[in-house]
């Protein structure tokens, strides 16, 4: 059943391609559509589909699937609704959130202004990511994120890139927002800086995040966390991929206001987390009390829940 859903999602993603390439993508065998994670287009290269077997060409003869610069321009124009200014903020950061819950990674020549990326031109590659929801994936894990009094414990989701952190985070948000027999529903505010969690389009979250979830889309975490704290009275704030010191400062400030936090970090496990200087502050402050580590073994994912002890430096203990 889930496999059939995957093939449907692939076909929806293929609808976003230029006509010639769409035909090739739709002609792929079903088993390949079901396992497709991304469609990749590079100029003067054949279009490929990324699966767990690697990148495979979508056509038997490479020249049939050859991607031109005009194909990329046409695709970007169509996905930005011929109004590039409306997507400029995300485009300059290298992606577009696309109607239907897809995400388009964009590569090309970066136009710099005052040393910061201002725009992208001469597109050279696109990666159409087929965002998939796994409804119910986090149900079991989420139950372990509460203390004996039923209070939510701030949690970090850890795995290397491509490990499934965002998929787990998305469903954990849904579970917290929905509540369960053991725990009441919580108001969750999502700071979706890169539009990867809700994949919002025109003000609508395109993924299922539960009935009590508010999404602040396209906003940097360090700015968005105080905004939702002031405006939305959240019980839990969820963010994806903490990578910068200002994000950590905002998270610490929110934790001191009594709000629960749910976040993801690129790390193999808690040991690697402790070794990274950037994240030490989080651990020293005792902001997060639980860690969910995603392990991949024999193609299957396991979710290990660990308790994070406060590791304040000796002088402060």
């Amino acid at each position, binding site marked *: 059943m889930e496999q059939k859903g995957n093939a449907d999602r692939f076909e929806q993603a293929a609808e976003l391609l230029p006509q010639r390439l769409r035909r090739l993508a739709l002609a792929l065998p079903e088993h390949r559509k079901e396992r497709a994670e991304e469609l990749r287009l590079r100029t003067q290269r054949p279009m490929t589909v990324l699966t767990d077997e690697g990148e495979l060409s979508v056509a038997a003869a490479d020249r049939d699937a050859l991607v031109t610069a005009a194909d990329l321009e046409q695709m970007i124009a169509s996905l*930005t609704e011929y*109004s590039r*200014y*409306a997507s*400029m903020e995300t485009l300059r950061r290298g992606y577009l959130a696309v109607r239907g819950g897809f995400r388009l990674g964009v590569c090309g020549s970066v136009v710099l202004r005052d040393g910061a990326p201002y725009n992208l031109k001469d597109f050279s590659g696109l990666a159409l990511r087929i965002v998939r929801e796994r409804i119910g994936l986090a149900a079991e894990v989420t139950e372990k994120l509460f203390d004996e009094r039923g209070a939510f414990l701030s949690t970090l989701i850890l795995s290397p890139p491509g490990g499934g952190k965002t998929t787990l985070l998305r469903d954990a948000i849904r579970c917290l927002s929905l509540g369960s027999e053991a725990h009441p529903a919580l108001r969750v505010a999502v700071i979706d800086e890169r539009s990867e969690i809700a994949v919002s389009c025109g003000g609508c979250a395109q993924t299922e995040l539960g009935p009590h979830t508010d999404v602040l889309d396209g906003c940097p975490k360090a700015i968005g966390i105080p905004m939702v704290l002031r405006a939305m009275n959240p019980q839990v704030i969820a963010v994806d991929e903490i990578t910068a010191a200002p994000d950590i400062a905002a998270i610490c400030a929110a934790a001191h206001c009594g709000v629960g936090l749910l976040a993801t970090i690129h790390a193999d496990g808690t040991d690697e987390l402790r070794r990274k200087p950037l994240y030490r502050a989080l651990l020293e402050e005792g902001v997060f009390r639980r860690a969910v580590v995603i392990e991949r073994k024999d193609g299957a994912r396991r979710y290990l829940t660990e308790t994070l002890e406060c590791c304040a430096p000796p002088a402060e203990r």
Partner: protein
Amino acid sequence: MLRAAGGALILLGGLAARQSALEAGRRAQRTRRELAEALERLEQEVRLCLVPIPRLLARRGYGAEAGRFFRRASEGAASESFAERWARAAAALPLDEQERADLADLGARLGGEAESVCAALRLAAARLRERHAREEPQRRERERLTTAFCLGASALLFILLV
């Protein structure tokens, strides 16, 4: 009786000729006014909310002429680009050739960065407003002359006939 009916028909014909001669000018002025207002609205929405142009065109309340133009600009084959659709719709506007060409060019400038899109929309709206203001006294003068000519000619025919 027959003469009176013929005379009445001549007068009615004169009025109809006047109406049709004036309607083209009035429609052009109406189109300029509505389009200028609509383009200013687009500019405001782009500047404040960065809403994509096709979504703005799909909204209502632009006035009959501007609404018709926006509907035409939104419809078309999938293979046709937005600029091509916009240019095709501009070609059908009841304006003079130079104005149609200016508006057709605008379509190609609506996809860039927000400041340049807003500037292009403001410029197009200002041109339409300027032309509208310039045409208005001339249109009134033309209306007076046309009315005088049509009514005078039909009155003369009426007198000759009756």
